[in-house]
């Protein structure tokens, strides 16, 4: 089970939050869920589900995330 | 007896309206067109109306022959002479596509004979008129030989920057005439002196494309009229709403592209003026399409952005009319997503709506109207044609089954969607030009216009609808009323910071003189009116607005006033003006008008008056309502009738919905108050 989190808008550092499935920059709210042994950031619960059902079977366990 | 006749030949019907100039009476007649023998249809109509050729003092013709030739691609083989390096302009076009997301779309086929018939002339002028490459006359002669060899039937000439600098085009024209003799030639600076080479050359090619045919058409109609006993010259309606001598139409055929609908706008302008209404939206709904136009401050709007089909412009002055596929014959259908759609395809005259009983099986707007009780099956075209209620019902029921809807609800929906399509077209026409439709009166005419006008007005929040006398043959009425009119344009760019009022004055005088000469050639002998206008924009903008100038010498002062008015106009239309911004003057226009004496329109005695009656008419949400059915001529002057009501006449029926009222004006128009 995951949860919605709010990301702070900051102009002080260039790092930006990215969805673990699709790679999209996630503005504002994001979905945090445990997937493949790690808390990962997703656009929404649907992308978390597709990470399990599509991404992992196809591409395998990711290397340690940044 | 001095008779004036206007005859409007359309694809389906030939409409005749004749005025007895001594008695002041009008008569009208609708007969079938004969595309194979248009002249014969006209003399037949005259004979049917009891008009002898000798009695015809004046005859004006509105025709769709030019438009149809362009649409059906039955014109001649045109060769194009253009600046070397730009031979492919007709094929390249503007490189955009009509709609997104449609891989099946194909670019419009150019009107030139083939790509090989587009030949480059060795010459070049710069944007400011300097000669970059001198014209090679010998080379032009070689190109002429090639065109002759290719069997070209007409030549179009369009060189870069010729809208402003005409010398090279004039020289090429002279050579072509020397070399190719009788082959018709169209030259871009004469046909359409506007900038943008593709638009100008396409217009010129279209003119050439029509020339041989229009020459034959005019000649054969003249012969037919002479044989019928008419001795006078006659005129053809131009797209700009003025009439021109028939011989002029043969030399400048592209001017006839909107000849048909232009008549309706002329008549609309007159009726509006007589009713004292300044701002009118015209709504001319016939069998296959609806034409929408604007009258602002008592004047028709003109444009040079007419398109033969999407992507093929004919940039000549035309009355600004938008046509959409919403007519009585428009077919209702279900799209792949289950949405109900109406038009743009039409059942036309053959097979026509299901209720015509000519084998049509698809439900049309006319079928829907019949089912809703809005048409009287026994009194269509004043009783000259009857409609089959059962066939209309069957067609609507078939479609209703597909949609799982009640047939009556479906019929009401068909009418509503047709009305909504029209309303959207009206929004385009009005808002695109910065006008709020709610400040207008809707003028409904054409066979089906009066039936739909009030509902269209209601959906646009237009408070009032006007139905003129003779609504079903209104375009022919306009032919009787048309003035002679010549538009001349001079294109040269100036900036407001650096404009020579003296030069502007001289050029205005020069083109005014040309316009007046042309007016005289077209047979006008009275005192002409002239109007002058400048097209201007903020420097950097690409689209201009026309500002009329007052009479008198053009001075620094006149121009300064015009700039102030431009800023005010911009503020009003777009919500902002840019202080201190340079204004660019783009083109200068003179319109010369030869007024014809006014005609008083009085309702004709109907052919078959019916006694007032009642019938059941369906309205959504209200069901069938007991509705008054009256003949137009039996409405007393000033009498107010409450809706629901149907007002019938020979060529049309006006629907007045519940909570609306209708009355007859002193001038014979019907005024429907949409929200009394």
């Amino acid at each position, binding site marked *: 089970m995951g949860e919605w989190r709010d990301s702070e808008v900051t102009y002080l550092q260039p790092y930006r939050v990215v969805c673990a499935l699709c790679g999209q920059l996630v503005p504002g709210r994001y979905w945090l869920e445990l997937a493949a042994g790690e808390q990962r950031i997703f656009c929404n619960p649907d992308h978390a589900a597709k990470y399990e059902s599509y991404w992992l079977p196809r591409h395998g366990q990711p290397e340690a995330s940044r | 007896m001095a008779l004036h006749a206007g005859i409007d030949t359309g694809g389906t019907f030939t409409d005749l309206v004749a005025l007895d100039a001594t008695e002041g009476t009008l008569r009208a007649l609708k007969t079938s067109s004969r595309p194979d023998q248009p002249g014969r249809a006209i003399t037949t109509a005259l004979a049917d109306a009891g008009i002898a050729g000798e009695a015809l003092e004046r005859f004006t013709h509105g025709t769709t022959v030019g438009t149809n030739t362009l649409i059906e691609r039955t014109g001649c083989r045109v060769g194009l002479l253009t600046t070397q390096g730009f031979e492919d302009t007709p094929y390249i076009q503007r490189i955009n596509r009509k709609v997104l997301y449609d891989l099946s779309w194909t670019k419009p086929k150019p009107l030139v004979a083939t790509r*090989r018939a587009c030949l480059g002339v060795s010459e070049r002028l710069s944007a400011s008129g300097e000669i970059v490459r001198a014209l090679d006359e010998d080379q032009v002669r070689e190109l002429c030989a090639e065109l002759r060899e290719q069997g070209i039937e007409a030549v179009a000439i369009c060189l870069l920057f010729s809208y402003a600098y005409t010398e090279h085009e004039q020289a090429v024209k002279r050579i072509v005439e020397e070399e190719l003799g009788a082959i018709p030639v169209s030259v871009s600076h004469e046909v359409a002196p506007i900038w943008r080479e593709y638009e100008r050359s396409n217009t010129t090619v279209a003119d050439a494309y029509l020339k041989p045919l229009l020459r034959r058409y005019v000649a054969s109609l003249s012969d037919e009229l002479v044989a019928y006993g008419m001795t006078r010259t006659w005129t053809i309606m131009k797209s700009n709403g003025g009439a021109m001598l028939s011989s002029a139409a043969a030399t400048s055929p592209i001017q006839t592209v909107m000849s048909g609908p232009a008549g309706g706008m002329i008549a609309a302008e007159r009726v509006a003026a007589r009713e004292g209404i300044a701002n009118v939206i015209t709504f001319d709904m016939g069998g296959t399409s609806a034409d929408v136009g604007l009258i602002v401050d008592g004047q028709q709007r003109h444009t040079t952005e007419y398109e033969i089909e999407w992507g093929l412009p004919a940039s000549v002055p035309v009355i600004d009319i938008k046509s959409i596929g919403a007519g009585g014959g428009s077919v209702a259908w279900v799209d792949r997503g289950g949405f109900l759609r109406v038009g743009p395809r039409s059942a036309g005259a053959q097979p026509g709506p299901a209720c015509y009983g000519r084998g049509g099986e698809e439900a049309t707007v006319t079928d829907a109207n019949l089912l809703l009780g809005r048409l009287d099956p026994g009194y269509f075209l004043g009783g000259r044609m009857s409609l089959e209620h059962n066939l209309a019902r069957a067609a609507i029921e078939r479609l209703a089954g597909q949609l799982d809807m009640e047939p009556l609800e479906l019929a009401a929906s068909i009418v509503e969607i047709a009305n909504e399509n029209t309303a959207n077209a009206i929004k385009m026409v009005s808002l695109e030009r910065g006008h709020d439709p709610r400040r207008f009166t809707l003028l409904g005419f054409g066979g089906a216009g009066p039936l739909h006008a009030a509902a269209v007005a209601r959906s646009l929040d237009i408070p009032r609808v006007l139905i003129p006398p003779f609504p079903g043959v209104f375009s022919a009425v306009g032919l009787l009323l048309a003035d002679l009119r010549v538009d001349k344009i001079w294109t040269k760019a100036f900036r407001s910071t650096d404009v020579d009022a003296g030069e502007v004055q001289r050029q205005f005088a020069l083109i005014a003189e040309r316009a007046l000469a042309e007016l005289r050639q077209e047979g006008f002998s009275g005192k002409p009116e002239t109007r002058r206008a400048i097209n201007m924009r903020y420097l950097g903008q690409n689209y201009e607005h026309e500002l009329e100038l007052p009479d008198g010498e053009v001075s620094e002062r006149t121009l300064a006033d015009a700039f102030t008015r431009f800023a005010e106009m911009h503020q009003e239309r777009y919500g902002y003006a840019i202080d201190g911004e340079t204004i660019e003057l783009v083109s200068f226009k003179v319109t010369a008008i030869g007024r014809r004496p006014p005609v008083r329109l009085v309702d004709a005695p109907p052919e078959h008056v019916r006694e007032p009656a009642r019938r059941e008419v369906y309205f959504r949400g209200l069901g069938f309502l007991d509705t008054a059915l009256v003949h137009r001529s039996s409405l007393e002057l000033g009498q107010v009738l409450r809706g629901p009501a149907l007002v019938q006449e020979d060529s049309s029926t006006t629907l007045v919905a519940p909570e609306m009222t209708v009355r007859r004006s002193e001038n014979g128009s019907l005024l429907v108050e949409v929200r009394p």
Partner: protein
Amino acid sequence: MTPSQGATDAPAALDPVTLTVLDNYLTSTCRDMGVTMMTTAYSPIFNESLDFSCVIFDPRGQMLAQAEFCPSQIGTIKFTVEWTIAELGLEAFEQGDVVIHNDPYRGSGHVPEHMLLRPVFWEGELVAFVANVAHMSEVGAKTPGGLSGDATEIFQEGLLIPPVKIKRRGEDVPDIWKMVLANHRTPRVTYGDFHAMMASLELAERRLHALIAEQGLDTFTAGGDELIAIAERRMRAEIEEIPDGVYRFEDAIEDDGIGEGSFPMKLELTIDGSEVIADFTGSARQAVGPVNAIYAVTASAIYNAFLHLTDPTIPRNEGCYRPFTIVAPRGTIVNCEFPAPVAGGNTETSPRITDMVFGALADAIPERVVASCGGTSSPFLFGGRDARSGEPYAHFHFEGVGWGGRHDADGNDMIVTINGNCRNTPVEVFETRYPAFRIESYRLTTDSGGPGTFRGGLGGERIFTVTVAEVTVGALLNRMRADPWGTLGGAAGARGGLWVRRAGNGEWRTFVEEFGTASPSKFSGVTLHDGDQVKIVMPGGGGYGDPRKRDRERVERDIHEGFVGIEAAREHYGYELERDGADG
């Protein structure tokens, strides 16, 4: 509670007529917004080429309607608006505000495209957003005209504007205006263009107010939701018609302007019932130069492909996009990371991605796909100072390409590539506005269409001559080294390219040969002088199907019109062989 449960007590379904009317009204409002922009804007890319789009959103950032102007913008604006709302929050919007935004790393497509967004209120409640996005011809990049072919960071591509208010409660925010105008080379043009965009937003607001006054807020809100649901349902039904499977296609961007190349793009397309997953895993790392696509651009290119493959009458709103998941690993050419440059991603990489979908699905739905189009906008940038007025000028010039052959028809000649729908700038307008060049010729190129049963459309060629003492030029073209591919047995169309001929020198050479640029097709800041010439060649479209199966009549007509020369007809279509055979 999940977010979707919020809208439970929706009113009863609206009837189809009301929905049709609503959809038409919203779409025609978007179109009217466009007309206002066209009539009042300043830059030719805007008012002559119509490189802009107009859109209506609901307060949740869902697209309700769009006018059909520019496909790539319509795909990306959805991301731009979402980001704006997410960053500012709904409570930040007030009546009369206008937000400006062009930062690709905050959801925009590329730097020249500026979005203006206006909230629409009804009786104090935020009920919609109206927005437009337009390509500004000058944005203060390292070289004039916005697209710097050799940029290595986004900072060289122009002034970045995060979502900020340029109007607050109906009043201009002068500080923002000053910041922007001080950073653009042609501030007067920027000023005129922004005002045109704002006028269009005000028109849209008035139109929505009229709609809500007439139909009621409930109908507007419920109708909007229902139109989105209908669009989604219909899009899913269309996808279900495509056979399930995993389809692959590969293409590559030939170079990045810095000298590196090529950059393969790998697409794995999974069609599973009504769902589509477009997965770019395995594509090249992001480039140093400006050929990278930002995520929004890649997603937009995929949407664009499917909108071309499905029923064009589906209402164009948020629902169309829901069936798609686009997987684009960060740090790749299809989803680059800050601060990589992105200008060419939107103009160049985008159409290539769209074509890749057609390539992938060629065997699955052969009657619906097309061969590759020329796939480049041929961006040619220039700027300088007008000797007559002393005013600076800058221009982004682009060209059409041949389109790919189809299952039943040849490709169109010279049309703007599939991610745009701009018009060309007429020669007479171009030379009047930009006296730096005279155009010597603008032609179709015979034989440039890829041979096929249905051949590709023709590309073309344009030659410019410099007519001023000096002008700065740049370029960001593609398909100079890679073919516009044919499909299902069709052959490739002709490549495009860019050449220069110095005054007094008779030879056409590449910019690499003449100026030592790293790439022949992507560079900036080259100075040309009076009499120098530039030649842009626009690629043709790929052919569809085996050329030997082409109708003899079509081959003959092509020869007659001059679209195909007799030599090429012999070589590709076996033209004379067949006749000799018949005669013998």
